[in-house]
């Protein structure tokens, strides 16, 4: 197991270095000059040129990258061009929005999808299965921004139960903060749940056809016990794989939904930074998100070992 973990850690570090290079190069290759964007159409080109120089954008790309990498290794992701604040501090201020949003959405996804998937599998080709698949199909088909707008229309505009958007911060109280995050979390989680329902259903269905399940049934175990003790545990590997991948996608989905719900989260920070060519922020957020996804995958890899003794033993 130790060797297995060590191998994963090396892969994780290599991935992050590769991601950092990719992000840096892609961001620099993008057409669009940060200085021209700051100055807009009203500032003079001379003023833009002076600003470009002051921002250090005229230095060779390799020098800029190495400087940035050295800073990043020390925990310094640079300074935002737009806000004139450290990128790390900006990311930290956005986490109290994006992290709870992603966690709420993930919670919604798991709580809805896994039971629904099991239900569909155990009611294979019966009414319940078809309804579950229909709901899942709807979830996959409806774009997140659209389901977000529909939720706003129903719960904010028509019923007036929750705010249509914005976030006053956790200091304003747990309930008001949760209230701001609830609708986007549902919109975000709905799509992911729809995918996970299908994965769960198919994984459980596969296991239910196994001989040992038939044996368990034959020896007279109650159906619930067969499903939860024998089938689900063995079906968990593909479910955890899909759920892990989806956790990463939740962060990407947050970019769109944070705009629809006007939430000051990481996604909106990244989106604005791309529009404003705030290169240090784009790089910082991309690296941070990539790190999160790599770490999630790492955790999933470790979970395999915990869930499946064969992987544990093979690795060691």
């Amino acid at each position: 197991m130790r060797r297995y973990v060590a191998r994963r850690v090396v892969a994780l570090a290599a991935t992050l270095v590769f991601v950092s290079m990719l992000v840096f190069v892609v961001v620099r290759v993008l057409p669009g000059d940060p200085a021209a964007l700051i100055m807009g159409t009203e500032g003079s080109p001379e003023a833009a040129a002076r600003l470009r120089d002051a921002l250090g954008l005229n230095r060779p790309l390799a020098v800029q990258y190495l400087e940035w990498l050295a800073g990043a290794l020390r925990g310094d992701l640079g300074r935002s061009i737009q806000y004139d604040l450290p990128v790390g501090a900006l990311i930290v201020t956005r986490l109290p929005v994006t992290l709870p949003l992603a966690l709420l959405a993930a919670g919604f996804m798991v709580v809805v999808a896994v039971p629904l998937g099991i239900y569909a599998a155990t009611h294979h080709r019966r009414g319940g299965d078809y309804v579950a698949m229909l709901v899942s199909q709807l979830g996959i088909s409806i774009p997140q921004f659209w389901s977000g707008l529909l939720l706003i229309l129903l719960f904010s505009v028509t019923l007036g139960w929750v705010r249509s958007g914005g976030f006053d911060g956790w200091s304003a109280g747990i309930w008001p903060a949760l209230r701001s995050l609830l609708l986007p979390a549902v919109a975000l989680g709905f799509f992911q749940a729809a995918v996970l329902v299908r994965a769960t259903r198919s994984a459980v269905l596969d296991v239910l056809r196994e001989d040992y399940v038939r044996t368990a049934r034959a020896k007279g175990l109650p159906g619930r016990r067969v499903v939860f003790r024998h089938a689900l545990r063995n079906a968990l590997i593909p479910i955890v794989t899909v759920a892990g991948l989806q956790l990463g996608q939740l962060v990407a989905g947050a970019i769109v939904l944070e705009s629809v719900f006007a939430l000051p989260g990481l996604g909106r920070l990244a989106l604005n930074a791309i529009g404003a060519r705030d290169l240090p922020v784009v790089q910082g957020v991309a690296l941070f998100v990539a790190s999160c996804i790599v770490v999630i995958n790492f955790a999933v890899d470790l979970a395999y070992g915990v869930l499946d003794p064969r992987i544990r033993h093979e690795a060691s």
Partner: protein
Amino acid sequence: MMSRSILVLLGIVLAVSGLAGAAAAQSPAALVVQASTEPPGLDLTATPASATAGVVLYNIQECLVKVDRTGKIAPWLAERWNTTDNRNYTFFLKKGVRFHNGRELKAADVKFVFERAMNPETKHPYPRYYEAIGDIIVKDDYTITFSLKTLNANFLLNLARQGSVIYPQEAVDTLKSAPIGTGPFRFQEWVRGDRIVLGKNPDYHVKGLPHLDRVTFRFITDPNAVLAALKAGDIDASLFGLGAEHVQELSKDSRFAIVVGDTTNDVILAMNNARKPFTDVRVRRAVTHAINKPDVLKGAMFGMGKILGTNVDPLNPYYVDMSGAMPYDPGRAKKLLAEAGYPNGFEAVLRVSPQYQYSVRTGEILVDQLRKVGVTVKIEQIEWGQWLSRVWKEADYDLTIIGHAESWDIANYANAKYYFRYDSAKFQELFRKSEVTLDDKARRELYVQMQKMLVEDAPAVWLYMHPRLAVTKKGVQGLWKDLPVSSADLAEVSWAATK
């Protein structure tokens, strides 16, 4: 079964949270305003962004003189000024004006502000506005004289512009994140990505103002989200964020009031005068004759706005209505194209940025109209950052549509390097004269000549003035109807007693 319980639980949580929300009633002296773009910093001496001006100009910081709601230059932090030779202007500062940090505004602050603006090291976005200034002499704490190296007809206007705001010299390092000024509102809080909050300045130098205790600018980019926020009552006003199509919808709703007014924003179809076939004036005139501007205004802006004939907007005192000078005449357009050697028309690419939805809609109408005279136009939508780089900076384009919001921006046509690439020595000379002609009648004559010359040379097609479109809850009063300057001056805004 389980999913049903989750839905019930969700319903309960929403209902409980809804009750909590209902308890938090809005204060009658507070206003929540939507802003489409978050400012890229709050330092007006470092960025020309209209998003910054919308929050800071005339709300937090003010100038020696002010462009008022009618477009006239009015005394402000300077209660009066005099000049005998149009070269030496002496300003007499209003006494007792205090910055938000409590210190009184003195002439030394004014000197510091303008010397800093003139210093190239400070990267001020508009150094050219201060080029004419030679010396700045502080006579006493409330009297200051500007000596100009050359005559400058726009000197007073330049002192009213957003880059000329007065701030205390000790607060220069915090201008970007927490600006201090003399305005009716004090900066309170900026939650990046969400809102900027301003509070009332109790020591404001204009008695009785402001009416509001608190102003919150909330950043909502998506127009649909703005609509939802208005309808849900989460914001009180949208001053710039909604398009003509949304205003149409909200005008039918009795809960809202619509403000439609004039602006200095000229929406133009720019042609690259240095690229064939637009190097030929006959082609440029043909394009102008091929466009049915009333139809464009109807289709793109639901008829709101005003048709333009040149690049001087209706709020400018030297505006001449030239909208009928080059009328819609497809027959004439075809003839001109044939004379220029394009009897079967030509192909061109129109680059627009979807960030400005009106430009895309306008483009779609123009494509149809130009096709009728044989000009095949392909629309290419590019992101704003790319537009600035490729079109505006490098002039890598055939045609583009954009609104020019700056006032007095006829100057752009006197700059051969500007992205129009319009290079006319005669026009440049007329403009140079207009900059040093102080006599109003003579200057007006020069402006009339410049406008006529632009019509003749047709370096661009001036389509329409983008209207000021603001939506507020019923009861919000005191907003500027017209926008002669890029500011959302909220000093006189209040709620009607019935709120």
